[in-house]
């Protein structure tokens, strides 16, 4: 029974990572189809990516793209909303359509023996939706109520307040789902126009992974999607927003026992040259469980259930955000600790141990990130939406491993300047106002 319990057992020989081999076809209408057969379990993940989203809607019609996606299943010329619902529910497939800033994604997950009918369903929603007036009214009022209910959720309030502050009226400052003001103004004809302009095969991509075979898949896609016509426009990335000085913001939630807090600034787009250094820096600062911020606030102080940071890479510069919820009584101290951790990252080199841990966590986890059909379609979508290179994942490990401690410090220095950090808390304002004021001028929002 000779096991040595005193040290970590060494790994055996690593298995080779097999990245999915993507096959592709472009139909005569320019719809691109990409697929990865995986036969282990009888399921299929489908994702249709359309160049569209909030960037494609007029600024005063925030939520138009999202409303359109919600209405896709609400009726065609010969099938009403209930008919569509019964069809989908009999297939047993899951269907979800959602808008982002620059694309709309329709995802289906299904048992593989209903694939052909599922493709027909998907095709029907993107080519034949009719948007009956009564359904537009209903879905619009459902969405308006939902916006109202979002105010109940402190984390939603915090997230929205932060991006409004950082981006103001810019694209990333608007909620993709629209606002209480914009939603009621959207009419059926706006939805129809949006659908006509943006739901086109040219520039669209259908991704499939799972228990599929090339022949039958292409045949089904051809049968149901080849008559779809239209020429795409490319959604433009938003112009680089102005960088503003950071502020301290407080949203009152009377009686709140905890404070939802955020520390944020405008970050960077996907294609930044120091992309991989930023990923490593964030992992050490707040990306991993064992990151500095989480270790400090959770494992040392016991102030929170968890604290994390992230860079939102997008086509344009998405936000950098530290997010956590702490006991209200330590709100100001928590901000100071977070700012302290950021400052140390900017001033001092991270240790070799931290650097190694982050690199290993990021690169050795690749097999886990490409495990299921859903994950694979999601990774392919990410790669295409953000124009990542064909070799992005092939070279990822090397790119991450090349990052040095000095590069980590440099990206923190460049992107995480103290004077541009906005601090935001959603909590009982009265109980935190005084201690927060010691950090600077507090504005109530």
């Amino acid at each position: 029974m000779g096991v040595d319990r005193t040290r970590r057992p060494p790994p055996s020989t690593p298995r080779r990572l097999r990245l999915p081999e993507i096959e592709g076809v472009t139909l005569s209408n320019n719809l691109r189809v990409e697929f990865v057969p995986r036969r282990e379990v009888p399921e299929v993940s489908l994702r249709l990516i359309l160049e569209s989203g909030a960037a494609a809607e007029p600024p005063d019609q925030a939520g138009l793209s999202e409303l359109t996606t919600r209405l896709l299943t609400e009726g065609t010329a010969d099938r009403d909303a209930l008919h569509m619902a019964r069809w989908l529910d009999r297939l047993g497939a899951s269907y979800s359509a959602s808008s982002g800033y620059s694309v709309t994604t329709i995802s289906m997950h299904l048992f593989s023996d209903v694939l052909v009918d599922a493709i027909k369903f998907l095709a029907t929603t993107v080519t034949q939706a009719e948007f009956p007036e009564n359904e537009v009214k209903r879905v619009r009022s459902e969405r308006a109520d939902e916006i109202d209910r979002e105010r109940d959720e402190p984390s939603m309030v915090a997230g929205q307040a932060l991006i409004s502050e950082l981006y103001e009226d810019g694209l990333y400052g608007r909620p993709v789902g629209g606002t209480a003001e914009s939603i009621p103004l959207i009419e059926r004809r706006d939805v129809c126009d949006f659908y006509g302009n943006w739901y086109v095969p040219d520039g669209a991509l259908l991704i499939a992974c799972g228990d599929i075979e090339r022949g039958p898949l292409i045949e089904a896609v051809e049968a149901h999607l080849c008559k779809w016509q239209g020429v795409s426009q490319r959604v433009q990335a938003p112009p680089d927003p102005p960088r503003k000085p950071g502020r301290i913001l407080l949203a009152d939630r009377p009686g709140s026992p905890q404070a939802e807090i955020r520390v944020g600034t405008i970050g960077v787009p996907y294609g930044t040259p120091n992309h991989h250094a930023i990923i490593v820096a964030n992992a050490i600062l707040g990306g991993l469980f064992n990151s500095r911020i989480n270790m400090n606030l959770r494992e040392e102080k016991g102030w929170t259930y968890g604290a994390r940071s992230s860079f939102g890479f997008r086509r344009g510069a998405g936000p950098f955000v530290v997010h956590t919820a702490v006991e209200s009584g330590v709100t100001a101290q928590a901000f100071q600790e977070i700012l302290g951790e950021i400052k140390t990252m900017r001033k001092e080199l991270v240790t070799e141990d931290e650097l190694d841990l982050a690199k290993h966590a990021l690169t050795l986890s690749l097999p886990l990130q490409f495990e299921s059909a859903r994950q694979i379609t999601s990774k392919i979508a990410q790669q295409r939406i953000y124009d990542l290179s064909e070799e992005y994942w092939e070279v990822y490990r090397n790119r991450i491993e090349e990052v040095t401690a000095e590069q980590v410090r440099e990206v923190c220095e460049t992107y995480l300047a103290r004077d541009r950090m906005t601090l935001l808390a959603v909590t009982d304002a009265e109980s935190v106002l005084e201690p927060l004021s010691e950090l600077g001028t507090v504005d109530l929002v």
Partner: protein
Amino acid sequence: MAVSSTVNFELEEHRLANGLRVLLQPDSSAPLVALHVMYHVGSKNERSGRTGFAHLFEHLLFQGSEHVPREGHFKYIQDAGGTLNGTTWFDRTNYFETLPANELELGLWLEADRMGFFKPGITQEKLDNQRDVVKNERLQSYENRPYGLAFETVLESAYPQGHPYRHPTIGYMEDIDAASLEDVHKFFDSYYGPNNATLVLVGDFEPSEALERIQMWFGGISSRPIPEPPEVVLPSGYGECRREIRDKVQVPRVYLMFHSASFNEPEFETVDTLSYLLGDGNSSRFKRALVYEQQVAAEVSVFTWPTESVGMFFAVATARPGVDADHLEASMRLVLDDFKQDGLMPEELEGAQNRVRRSLVGQLSRFGDRADFLAHAAVLRNDPNYLNDAFSRYGLVDEIMVEEVAESVVDEDRLTVLHVIPEETS
């Protein structure tokens, strides 16, 4: 398109001399291995005044042991490119990680140190720190969330004083405060022996080799007497229970909970299918009536908790503005009454079964999820083969079974009603 048995996962079962149950499900389709250790202890085993203890204890098992430093679990697993977590529920506590396949040994070392060498690593300081973390978890996930206290209120109303399912797994604040180091030692000695645990491996490994390694890491840990499990029985003669609470919310939400078939009972798949039929999909009974036609609800969900004893069947609806809780409840109950009266249409059942099937396959595609499924089947049902049988068991559900189960479960004597209403309307 009837549900059929369409998966067939290779499965081996072993038991070490110390009572540790071992389930091996080799699958080389990805270079990964999922480890899952499930202990047959949960919040139902807690004594009065110590609610939340099983869950607090789970946190402590991430704080190191004799040979593993504090935060070592997180650090080693992340360093290997893996993921890890633990969860606690009424009947069980589990610890799991998915790792690159060549790091199987790392997972075994960590789990064996937890099981065999936990006590030397625990200190008052670690207990105090994790107590604070857990109190913040309670604040974040329950107290400071809309409708966050609803489920614990339902449980309090649905079960009599002293019933093992009466309190929430997260526990009450004052009980979390009361936990002592002595409680920690006692709980470990009572419930964390190998003979109260099941170890599951799913992934890319060679079964005989893996078993040998498991024997080496775990074989030397001694078994010990496990306390008799608490008796968990259906509260009888309790009648309909009703509660109302206020919360910082814009609109009311109504919870209907019926005592139902547990995960262990032959009716489980039928009740579960009923929940899909009633609430999953826009054409399901509840969504069609409440969300689409009457527009009294913004959201509806219907689901079954797969508990070891006394199942719980929930229907939960959130009101549209202007609709009060009584009106919403009446609409919900009308849906149930109509269903009991008129029965179902064959295509409704076919759809529900297809949705169940899609959901099952989704639960089995990743190794970690599959290990979780297998561990629950083994620990709560004593039936590891449920991994392969579940599809056919759901496939056998027919119209008469659904109608019968609706008749027996959807019964006022089994019902608990909770209204969560906005503070302003007080």
